[in-house]
């Protein structure tokens, strides 16, 4: 089953917060420059958030590799088929209702 959009959006934000903090920490560790690490972090946060969301929604539409419930595609049919009618007649006869 595909996720709702809001779930994808919340996942995008939570991952981005985590990943951007990691990026800023790494840049700061290598350069010692706080301004640069925050700048890279902000640019990265916005651009990758958009990319992540699009990537997530695209994968959501691909059923390959997904665990699928055996009854996920079941359609509730209101109309009885000719075979159903035969079976019903048979049952009713066996119980003396016909």
């Amino acid at each position: 089953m595909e996720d709702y959009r809001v779930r994808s959006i919340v996942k995008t934000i939570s991952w981005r917060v985590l990943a951007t903090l990691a990026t800023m920490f790494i840049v700061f560790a290598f350069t010692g420059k706080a301004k640069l690490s925050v700048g890279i972090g902000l640019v990265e946060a916005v651009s990758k958030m958009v990319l992540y969301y699009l990537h997530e929604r695209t994968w959501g539409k691909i059923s390959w590799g997904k665990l699928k419930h055996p009854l996920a595609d079941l359609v509730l049919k209101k109309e009885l088929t000719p075979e159903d009618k035969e079976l019903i007649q048979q049952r009713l006869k066996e119980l003396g209702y016909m």
Partner: protein
Amino acid sequence: MEGKKVLVVGIDGVPYTLVGEYVERGYMPHLKAILEEGYKLHQMDASLPDISSVSWTTFLTGVNPAEHSIYGFIHLDRRDYSLRFPNSGNVMAPTFFQILGLDTAGKSSSLANKYLPRFKEPRTSIVVNVPHTYPAYPMNGVLVSGFVALDLARAVYPPVLASTLKRMGYVIDVDPSKGHRDRAGFLEDLFHALDKRREAFDLFFKGKWDLFVACITETDRLHHFFFDAALDEAHPYHGAFVDFYKKLDDLVGHFYDMFLERHGGQGFFMILSDHGFATLRKEVNINRFLEEAGFLKLKEEGERYERIALGTKAFALDPCRVYLHYKDQYPLGEVGEGEAESHLEELTDLFRNLRNDDGSPIIRAIYRKEEIYQGPFLDDAPDLLCLPVDGYDLKGRIGAGTVFADSVFAGMHNQHDAMLILPEEKDFGDKPQIGDLAGLLLDHFCGEDL
């Protein structure tokens, strides 16, 4: 929403008189204890006619067949005399659980108009194995369809629960053909099906719900094949019959205890059957009777009602729904509006004089449709409806050789001996009717949302 709760146990075809007798004999100790705790056993009238699909639909919708449109397991297509098999999709009035869920799927009824404005919050229902709810349809809760459910995949809403039921070996229904060829095996199947029914009820009972309707249909199957064993201690299956009722009693007691433990004073508990049962003496082929009286003419060719020929003035659908063959409604019809009254009078006289070999009457009541039905689907109603004396099972079979025939079945439905167990303070005054109960259940929830 935490609040009032209702548990309904339906036991298909269990007669008031038999329950009274079995409680008296000590076969149903749990039921006896329930009755001693402030409940009363009532004799109740089933729907007209007393067919499970009609009676359960009348119970669920709280309106008569002219409002819900179900008059039997089979309907006749007036355009070509073919048979139709109404299903849940043909029920034209909302059920009380749809009203409680505040989603009537666009349907309305006098009951819905009365109660819908009184509820603000949707309530959750679990409805298991009630006949004539197949195919299952979206509702606020869980619906597992009963007879005539054909496959589990279409018998369960939400559909995802079908796999759970399949894994636990849930039985939609026993195979009734086995009752004709292997009686001992059929009995075993009934006991097994009751076990599975109980497992399913237990499973859903743990969930969140406001209304729970649990229906047991194995009793009806037992009665069709073994009702003559109910009180006859010399019958080879009497012991098994009583054992089945003891098992049923145990199930009822189990649910009552769980309900009491979980919901105590907030709960409203009810047990009902959809019709009574009687020992079958003879089948009475109503269409053969109409043929002999000159009302029905049959062609040689064709299947069932397609054999109706020119010259036919009336015919019957099971069990004794008698329709005039109006010329403006049927391709071969020839009864004009002006003749209807005289035909109905003649038919009424004929049925009154239908007698057994010893001269005793076969028909105990004859109704005209306007007397018993009111609603938008009155046109589909039979012009006359006859009820038999217990022992004579009226049949709409086409092409039977004789009016009276022996039956392969041991039991037959009756209309006057359904049963109902309610808290003592719910007093109906007169004999309760199955159609009264939906209002009673909805009343229980009224006042909570103010």
